[in-house]
């Protein structure tokens, strides 16, 4: 059955006709031409199709398009600003060698963004926990984790410039971040 849905895609209001059995992944890639989101396994095992729906990372291959009605969707295409400068997470993947073949990268970056938007000071354990559903078959996991950690540091720093970020209640991560920051300086 065909129906019309409206939602916000990377900040733009969108209205389109969909079929009931379409997944969000199908809608993005095959109908809207946003092929940055990848299809890996198609069964929610690999994380290549990860997008953010209302601040939550989900597998778009298992999410029905009909369920995005009224929601906010972020995909990899929404990260770089229109002038061409990359989002801090994207830049960090470039700077830290977090990319090999690149197929898993959009999913990795969207999982990282969902985490760092909530807690830019996430420590390595938290990063691993959040990225455990994203598989990289080139297996360059160490650089990927480093990329996310470095991006988090930068995003936390940017937040600090705007507001008093020092009052973060997450004391344990705060301490571990301070220690790591100290190591970098000395």
């Amino acid at each position, binding site marked *: *059955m065909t129906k019309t849905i409206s939602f916000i895609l990377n900040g733009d209001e969108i209205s389109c006709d969909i*079929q*009931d*059995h379409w*997944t969000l992944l199908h809608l993005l890639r095959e109908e809207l031409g946003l092929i940055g989101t990848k299809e890996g396994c*198609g*069964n*929610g*095992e690999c*994380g290549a199709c*990860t997008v953010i729906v209302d601040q*939550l*990372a*989900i*597998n778009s291959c*298992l*999410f*029905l398009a*009909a*369920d995005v009605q009224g929601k906010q969707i972020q995909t990899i295409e929404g990260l770089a600003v229109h002038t061409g400068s990359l989002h801090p997470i994207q830049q960090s993947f470039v700077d830290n060698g977090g990319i090999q073949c690149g197929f898993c990268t959009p999913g990795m970056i969207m*999982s990282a963004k*969902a985490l760092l938007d909530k807690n830019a000071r996430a420590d390595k354990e938290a990063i691993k*926990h*959040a990225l*455990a*559903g*994203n*598989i990289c078959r080139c297996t360059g996991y160490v650089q990927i984790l480093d990329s996310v950690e470095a991006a988090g540091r930068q995003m936390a720093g940017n937040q600090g410039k705007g507001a008093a970020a020092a009052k973060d209640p997450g004391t344990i991560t705060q301490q571990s971040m301070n220690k790591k920051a100290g190591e970098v300086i000395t």
Partner: protein
Amino acid sequence: MKPFTLLTPATVEEAVAMFGQHKETARYMAGGTDVIVKVKEGWMGPDYLINLKQIPGLDELHKNENTGELTIGSLVTHAMLEQSLLIRNEYPIIYDAVSNIGSLQVRNMGTIGGNLINAVPSADGAIPLIALDGTALLAGPAGERSVPVKDLFVKPYETVLTPGEILRKITIPAQAKRTGSAYIKFGRRAAMELPLIGIGVLLVVDEDLVTCTRARICLGVAGPTPRRAQKAEDLLEGKPVTATLLTEAGTLAAEESQVRDSVRGQAWHRKEMIRVQVRRMGIKCLDIINQKAQQTGRQV
């Protein structure tokens, strides 16, 4: 994927009526992490998919502070449970079990109700709810009824739900003072993996902090359905809990289990792990109880 018509009821009653209209050509869908995979793979091919996600109130998660009863709506996602401070602080066995189901993406979609009704022998979500003496409230064509979570499962992929019935919520009675609980999903890796064996232990102790007044030992992948090891529970109740006694309980639990060889591991390995992990989880329960007792002592 085989095309289907998606129906979006606004209430449980409306969903039940929709099922009544379409009968076996319809399927209910909660989080979709199992149903969509099955439709994609051709293991099921419903003409109508009844989407429970949009029904308001099915995702409520709250504790009644007067009665101490915890209500978990069937559409509460694993991530909601994992991120709830209430669950983390007061129901550690639930936190332990849900925080390693699938991946974060799957936990953001998958629901506790779906995990139960899918009825796999390895359902991580079922073990803590059985250990906590949870009750499932079902709604169907003939009205509502309650079933203890431990009695929900018939065999792999089959529950006591009759056609058209929906799991509305799970309620957990008030926990006794001095309760400790813990779960371990034991396997080669945690993410995107089913456990080799799942072990949940809940202990309640007397004021002396050692005599066990209630024990729950629940096992996943130790038989066709999630189950309690009642001989092991009986051994613990009424006695001072020690590491030696916990090892004996673990041995009994391993003996009464119906583990078997499978692609993920051998029966003997599973038995050994039940023996070891019942003890370890029991000790973790005692640690939690002692920690809480010390905190309370300091406050006084």
